[in-house]
């Protein structure tokens, strides 16, 4: 494993909040507070933590959707500057969102929605666009007839598939998955997670998989980072984290996870 695909060095994302009398004082919410880690090509790093721990903010900072207050992010060893080379970076790194009902423009048909990135960055010659849209749809398990339909005609699970197809349009190498399955039913979650794994096998993708469901993270991640109050408190392979967690918070998190086996009732037994 030579240079990591993504290197995050001492990243901080602070939000100024106006408080006090007449809003004169500004205190800072330290959403992401000095985080460093690396992801290697083809790997899936799981990022888990409770709401408000800063995991989504971190994910969005990496792809330039949130302001980077301090620290450095390298892609393939080179520093990422979204102000100047947003276009080239969009072909390297993409994002899938959590809320299936807000991630698709309600006014565009699925065909237009998938064709747009292709035409903007002319990924394929003009006459092959429709073909490429069909390929993307089949890649995520949807049929060609979806092209003429509008987002409100699809279920949550299907919309997530469309979101994934859109992210794949520019053929990125790294995908930030910002809680892509948290809003879905358990059976649909399993479908989408299998899809993620299959795409990783076929296209050699690298994932930063953000979720608050421990089960999902365990199933899909090679390595896992546990976040608490803007900091990574523990990081290791999935087996290390689940088999013998070191940090107090990780133990508390694992202990609180309801195990789907009535014979091992962990929550009610411990205090």
């Amino acid at each position, binding site marked *: 494993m030579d240079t990591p695909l993504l290197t995050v060095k001492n990243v901080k994302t602070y939000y100024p909040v106006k408080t006090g009398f007449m809003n004169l004082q500004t205190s800072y919410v330290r959403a992401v507070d000095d985080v460093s880690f690396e992801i290697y090509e083809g790997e899936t790093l799981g990022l888990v933590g409770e709401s408000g721990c800063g995991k989504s903010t971190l994910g*969005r900072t990496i*792809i*330039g*959707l949130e302001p980077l207050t301090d620290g450095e992010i390298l892609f393939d060893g080179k520093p990422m500057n979204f102000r100047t080379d*947003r*276009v080239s*970076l*969009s*072909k390297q*790194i*993409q*994002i899938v*969102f*959590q*809320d299936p009902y*807000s*991630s*698709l*423009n*309600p*006014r565009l048909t699925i065909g237009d929605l998938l064709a*747009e*990135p292709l035409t*903007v*960055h002319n990924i394929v010659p003009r006459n092959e666009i429709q073909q490429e849209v069909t390929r993307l749809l089949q890649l*995520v*398990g*949807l*049929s060609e007839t*979806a092209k003429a*339909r*509008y987002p*409100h*005609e*699809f*279920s949550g*699970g*299907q919309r997530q*598939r469309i*979101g994934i197809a*859109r992210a794949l*349009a*520019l053929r990125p190498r790294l995908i930030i998955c910002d809680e892509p399955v948290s809003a879905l039913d358990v059976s649909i979650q399993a*479908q989408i997670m*299998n*899809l993620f794994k*299959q795409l990783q096998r076929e296209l050699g993708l690298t994932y930063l998989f953000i979720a608050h469901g421990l089960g999902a993270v365990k199933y899909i991640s090679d390595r896992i980072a546990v976040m608490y109050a803007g900091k990574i408190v523990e990081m290791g392979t999935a087996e290390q984290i689940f088999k013998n967690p070191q940090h107090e918070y990780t133990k508390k998190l694992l202990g609180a996870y309801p195990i789907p086996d009535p014979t091992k009732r962990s929550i009610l037994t411990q205090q």
Partner: protein
Amino acid sequence: MSLFKRYFNKKKYDAEHTVTWSEDMPSKGLFLKRFKRHKLAVIGFFYLAIILLCAIFAPLLAPYNPNEITDAFGEGPSMAHWLGTDDIGRDILSRVLYAARVSLSVGVGAVAIAAAIGAVLGLIAGYFGGIIDGIIMRITDVFMSFPYIMFILVVASIVGPGLTNIIIILGVLGWPGIARLVRGNVLAIKQSDYVKAGIALGYSTPRILFKHILPNTIAPILIYATSGVAGAILDEAALSFLGLGVQPPDASWGNMLSSAQSITILTDQPWLWIPPGIFILLTVLSINYIGDALRDALDPRNVK
């Protein structure tokens, strides 16, 4: 747990299995279906269509030239003059038909100007935020502090009355309302994931603004615009009634009504002022009903 492994590997299941989706009604059908439920709005729609036709084809439909002095002075409705004539002998029916042009053009013209200015400023204020937003919003506050009718009266008295002036004044002073509405919508849409996805996909700001954000503000603008048209028609009528709108001899429902300010005309010649009043009422009423139906039909919230 081996039970599940043995049981399930009888048939291979994987993600490729194509997925069926609910046969929901296409959005166009749903829109019409929900609009039709508002009976009064449908009636209003047909009424408005008739008024529009009368306005366009006024020269053909009107029995007389609106300013033509006939020999009948101040007579009541008769076979020759269905709605009677005024003291100068002009035929009321013809004037009412020509006046329809005034009201509709003011309504649509003023709102078009207001919508154009308001939408652009609202879009900019909403999307860029920060100081630009602060400045634009303070300007709208200032404009909205002046009582609307008084402000128009003052400006009209300086700039001078007349149809085009009225349209421009109503348009130029009408934009703050729409600007605030569009800004509110843009602020909400800006947070949505499909805009963030657009940024991540490397779309340019104009593309995001005009291809992704603006189309999603059209519905609220449309709903606000219908009440704007109704308001503009009422404002023009009020101005003309007060003598500062459309100037005689041109006909406007408002200035036809102002003649009724004299007690004699009010009591003895009701056919002079009642028809224009009724026309304003029916036109504004239908536009308001259509606006209400639009709000229900376009409201994404109740996509049950």
